[in-house]
Structure formats: structure tokens, C-alpha cells
């Protein structure tokens, strides 16, 4: 099978067979992660949120592609009811038996940001949520729109998220496969050095995301090939 891409608008390059670690552009990371999330069964709208979240994390020095892959490997193919939260003021629990999908949780927190159910004024308990670092980009979105940084407290640390920065125990959060957390508006945020973007991805991660992405594609037919222009002579 040949996999040269030719969509100058959306399809990214074939990311298999690259060196062990490869620097992608943010665009490529967003595209690869959006397609992988769709391939794993998320709606188109949530797949876009996955692309946003992974790209944002890389722009802030965190391997978002790896975090997304770790989540998709657990969540692929599960129905919505198994992944979404039960929304209630002050407490968002899983609607199903397993952990909440961080992309659904994050984007829903963003949706409810100015509504009572999403209010952080009296604190909001969430979880358990899978790969919780993927929630951070959505907290940044909320922090930007409200103008207040947000504290995310979990059993082994606290992360502070502003519109465009992260501080606190982010390295601890990155390694958590699942956690409960309390969200609240942060009064003070520890001073930290600005995050450096890191767009390097592990080849194995990209290959595995590519496997999910290929689930969105359709095998060719002769007619589709000729529709796309094959069969004409270009030596004219």
C-alpha cells in the first residue's frame, strides 16, 4: 500500500518510518491527533478538540501526542455514555463505570465555563479522569476567557494553569494515567520559567496514532482513482 498524502489542506504526511524522534510542526501534530481521535471513535467536534489539546501541550513543552495515544488506547471504540461526565454543580463524576475521557471533560468544562454547573467559585470536583494532563489545555482556555488562573489539585500535587502558562507539579500530572482532582480559581500562582515549546514526537507514538488515523480512510476503487485524475497522460 502506498500512503503518499496529497491533500494540501488537511491530510498530513505519512509519519511512519521516521527517525526515533522527529520534530513536527504544530500543524502536523494537530492534524495527526485530530485524525487519530476520529479514528478512535470520537465525534468530529471532539476530534478537533483532541487536535487542539495535543498541539497546545506541545507548544508548552509537554508531549501531548503521547498523552493522547495513551488515552485513545484505553478509550477507543467505547460508547459516549462510558466516556462522558455526569454534570452537576460542584461535582462531575463519570456517567459510566470507567474514567471520564479528558477531551470530553475538558471541552465540556469549557462549554459550561460561564454556567452554574461549570462554576469554580466554590470548587469543582472532577474524576476520575483518564490521562488528566489532556484537561490542562481546556483549563488554559477557561483561564484566558475568565482572566483568572486555575488550580488543579490532585492527590500528589497541584498544577496552576493560566491563559498561556503552566506551573506547579506538571511533571507529576503528565505521568498520571488517571486521577480525581479539585478545580478552583487560583489566587496566587508560583513564578516559573516560561514553557518552551517542544514539537518532537516519538516515532512509535506517531506510528500508533497513524494506525488510528487510518481507520478514517476508505480503500480505493477503480472509479475513484480515475475520478481523481489517474489515467490521463501528463506528457503533454
Amino acid at each position, binding site marked *: *500500500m*502506498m*500512503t*503518499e*498524502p*496529497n*491533500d*494540501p*489542506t*488537511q*491530510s*498530513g*504526511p*505519512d509519519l511512519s518510518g*521516521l527517525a526515533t524522534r522527529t*520534530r*513536527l*510542526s*504544530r*500543524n*502536523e501534530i*494537530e492534524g495527526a491527533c485530530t485524525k487519530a481521535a476520529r479514528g478512535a471513535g470520537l*465525534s*468530529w*467536534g*471532539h476530534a*478537533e478538540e483532541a*487536535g*487542539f489539546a495535543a*498541539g497546545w501541550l506541545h507548544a508548552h513543552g509537554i508531549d501531548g501526542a503521547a498523552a493522547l495515544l495513551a488515552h485513545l488506547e484505553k478509550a477507543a471504540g467505547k460508547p*459516549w455514555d462510558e466516556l*462522558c461526565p455526569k*454534570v452537576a454543580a460542584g461535582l462531575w463524576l463519570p456517567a459510566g463505570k470507567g474514567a471520564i475521557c479528558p477531551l470530553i471533560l475538558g*471541552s*465540556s468544562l*469549557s*462549554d*459550561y465555563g*460561564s*454556567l452554574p*454547573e*461549570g462554576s469554580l467559585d466554590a470548587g469543582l470536583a472532577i474524576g476520575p479522569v483518564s490521562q488528566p494532563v489532556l484537561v490542562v489545555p481546556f483549563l488554559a*482556555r477557561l483561564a484566558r*476567557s475568565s482572566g483568572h488562573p486555575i488550580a488543579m489539585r490532585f492527590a500528589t500535587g497541584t498544577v496552576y494553569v493560566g491563559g498561556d502558562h503552566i506551573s506547579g507539579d506538571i511533571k507529576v500530572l503528565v505521568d498520571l494515567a488517571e486521577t480525581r482532582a479539585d478545580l478552583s480559581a487560583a489566587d496566587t500562582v508560583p513564578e516559573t520559567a516560561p514553557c518552551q515549546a517542544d514539537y518532537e514526537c516519538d516515532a512509535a507514538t506517531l506510528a500508533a496514532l497513524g494506525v488510528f488515523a*487510518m481507520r*478514517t*480512510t*476508505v*480503500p*480505493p*476503487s477503480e*472509479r*475513484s482513482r480515475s*475520478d*481523481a*485524475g*489517474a489515467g490521463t497522460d*501528463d*506528457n*503533454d
Partner: protein
Amino acid sequence: MQAGNTLATDGGTPQPRSPQVVMRLERMGSAHPTRLSFLRVLLRRMANEGWRFDRPVWEIDDHGVGRAVYRAAGPKRSYSLVAFAHDLPAEMRSDRVIATAWDATFALFDGTPSAADLDRLQANVPLQEAGRVSSQELSLSRANRSVRLWAHVVDRLAAGQQPDPEEIAAVGYLMRTTAVYGSGKFGAADRRDIADRPELAEPFQPEMLSVWLTRQFTVDIVEHLAMVKGGANAVRLEPAIKAAFGVGNSTGLGMAPYLVRHPLLLNNWSAAREEALTRVRGVAGAAPEAVRCLRQTYQEARRNAADWRSEHPIQVAKLADLCADLDRIGARLDQFPGTAAFPWDELWRWGEATLSVEGQEQLLALLIEPHGDLVDDLSACMSADETVAAPLNGSMTVGRLREILRQRYSWALATDFTQPENMARFWYVSEEKLEPRLGERASDEGAELEQPLCIARFAWELDADLAQSPATETVAAFVMRHPRHRYIVRRAQIAETHPYAEVHDNLIAADMLPIDLMRCKLAFFGATHFDPRSDKWVRISLFQGAPYPLDPEGGSLS
């Protein structure tokens, strides 16, 4: 330049055309380039800012193989097109993505490349998609020769003769690009990292610069090969002959979804063009210089139409419409400006009442052309800050969302998606090439993997579910119950404040023509000679008639 900027203040004040008129596929598929097209924006800026151009590297051998560098130096930064020329056997020449080799490959480098940069690029650029470039590169592209015209031009020049203008008109270019990859593709710099540079702020400026420098490369290398072949007998291209060459572009379905996937850009491009027309219609009187410019532009449009070749039945009919309309416009211009207080508006109203859609869009381009002082600033409104997932307004009510649907998507809600002809096709990405294709829902496999380009159907389905929901429910709660609508809800919220964001036609209808989407986008680029090779595959020409960077009078780009 124009008589005045006074807007008409009587009851007939011109208003921008409505999206219901402008965003129909038939009209988008009749779009003509204007002075707001992106290649015109590039050439204007370079002329105004006194950019300088040179060719610091020319290492091309007698077989036409090697590398060259073309540099464009602006007030603050310079950019270099790095070109690799190859010796391609005819059996490998394909414009399609299945190609793995090309006559020439290119990258646009940020600055002036060192020898080490050139070596790095030489190891990757000729491979195109199979190689990697870096954030020092702004675009990656390749081109194939027009075999017939190439041989003709080399032979004639080698024999001391100029090429036959008829042969040039029949093709229009020496090489055609088969892909120009920009923002962030294959490791190249992301647009968001360079968008704050004034010279790259408008859309597709690196890509346009790359193609313009490529045009210089195409004439340089035919002259080089003619010199190799003809020795002392060989001559160079005469300027008038040289001006007739554009750069071709061959493009397929891959381009068609772009305008659908970028609603903010589609809105901003269309809104800028409509605002330009509105401003011109509001001009009182007609200064002699503006009238002269209009007549000259009209003559150029006539020449362009006369040289515009296509064998595709749809395009043949459109060209016939265009030529007939140009006759009508010519006759009408004999009386222009006449005695009307707002002659440009009067001319436009006449056109709307008299001309085909093709002729109307040509007239729009003609009307805008003499009014650079009035409209050129609009190019600054044509980019967009696009993020992959704009936040939803979750506190909006279901009732308000339904109002937006009725206001912006009435064209979609009027379609009955229980009828097979209204959902006859589906867009998908091919496993084989990872490129967009169109399938037939009744007969082809894979409809369950449909790409989200069926906006009309999404809006129609959303409306049906909204109708079952309390009007006071929040969008946040609604999308929690109906997660599949998240995508179209986001678009509808964009469309609320961006009236030109959507194509007002059903993109999965049996009779939908993808080439209409392509022509619209290509006209915004500045493409001419739109020539469909099928209803999904086209060739066009860029920069025909434009100056060359290395012309002796290179400073006078305008």
C-alpha cells in the same frame, strides 16, 4: 485616482451583496481574479517596498540538472527559492500524487541558505512528501514541464528564433506545479509562527512568492538548455514573448474541501471582495484616469478570454457566456461614464440585470481595478486567526441557535435529506493516497467513513434535534446530549458573526461540481485560464503577463 470617495447617501446606497447571492456554487465557480487576489497583493507589496532580486546560485549542467537559488530581499528580511532541476524520463512524468519524481522540485527558504543548507535540502526536497524540511522552510513544491511547449521553445531559441506565440497561447506555461505545500507541511514553518511578519500577513504569500520565483526559473532553464543546444546561434526570449508565460498548476479534488474546512478564511476573502465592490459603487463621478484604466483593463480581459482554452463542455459554455458578455460590456463602456451621479453603481446595476453570472463576476473585477486607492487596504482583512477548535459558546440557548440556523442556513434547511439525490455522494479520504475523494453513496463502500463536508445535511439534522429540545436549554447541555452535533454547532456559532463563512449549496448532491469550489479558491489566488480536465481536476495559470524578478527593470513591478 478616483473622482471622490463620497458614498451615495440617497435611498439607493449600495449594500454588499448578500451571502444568499454570493455563496452559491454556481457563482463561486464563475469567480475571476481581482486586484485583491493574493498574487497581486504580493506583487504590489514588493513594488511599493522596493524589493530586490538576484540569483546567487546557478549550478545547472548541460543536461539541465543541478540546483539554483533565487533570492528576494525586502526591507527587513529575505527569502530564497531553492530549485533542484532533474532529468525525468517521460514514463515517470505524472501530475498526480502517485508521482515520486518530477522535472523540478523547490523549497522556499527563510533567509539566504548556506552551502550546508543547500546540501540538507538536496537530500530532502527532491523526495517531496517522502522527505522532511525544517522550520527554516516556508513551502515545498514541485513542477513538471509542458513537454510540447518546452521542446518547441528550446528548439526555436537554439535555432536563433523566437517561439511561436500561438504555441505559447495553446499552453500558457513552461512548467506546471503539481503541489505547493505551505504552512507546517512536512516539517515546514507553521503559518502562526510567521504570520506576524507584515510581508507574510496576507494569505498564501510564501506560496505565491515561491511560484513567482519558480516562473523565473522556468525561463532561465529553457534559455540555458537552448544555449547548450544552439551554442552561438541561440537567442534569449524577447520580453514580450517571455511575458506570455505563466506558471501552470495542476490540481485535483485535494483542493476542493479547503474552503469548507476554513470558514473564517472563506468569510474574510468573500467579505473583502464584496466590500470592495460596495465601495466602488459608492464613488461619485468617474475621473478620466479611472475611466482610462477601466478601458485598458477591459482590453486585457478580452485578450485573456481570447487566449483562454478549454475542451471541457462546462467551461466551453462558460467561455461562450464570457465572450458574449464582454461584447455587451464593451458596447456599454462606449457610453461610460455618462451623466449618472454614481456611474460605477449604474454600470454594476446594468450588469446585474443584463449579464450571465460569469459576465457579472468579470465585471466585478473590472470595476474594482481602477480603484486601488479605495480598496487595496482590504487585503489586510483577508487573513484569519484560525485555531483548530474554537471554543463553543455553551451559554447560548437552543432557541438562539435555531434562530442562527434560520438566518444563516435557510438554504440547508430547505433541502430534504430523505431524498436520495440530495445525499447521493460522500466525501472520503482514500486509504491509498490519503487524499479527499468523492464516492457514490448508493454503490460505493465507505459511506460510514464520510468526511465532515456535508454541512447542509449536518445543519438540517441539527435543526431536527434542536426542534425536540426546550428553547431555553443551553448549548452546553444540548451538545452533552447530542455530542455528534458539536462540529456543526461550532460552525453555526462562527457563521453567526461571519455571514460569508458557508458555501450555500449541498456538497453531497448528485449534481454538485467540485470544480466550482476550486475555481473560487484559485481566483482568490489570482489564477487565470481555469481549464477543467474533468469535473474534479483542473489546470490553471499563475502570473501570466506579470513582470519577472530578474527583469532589468525589476524595480518597476507594478
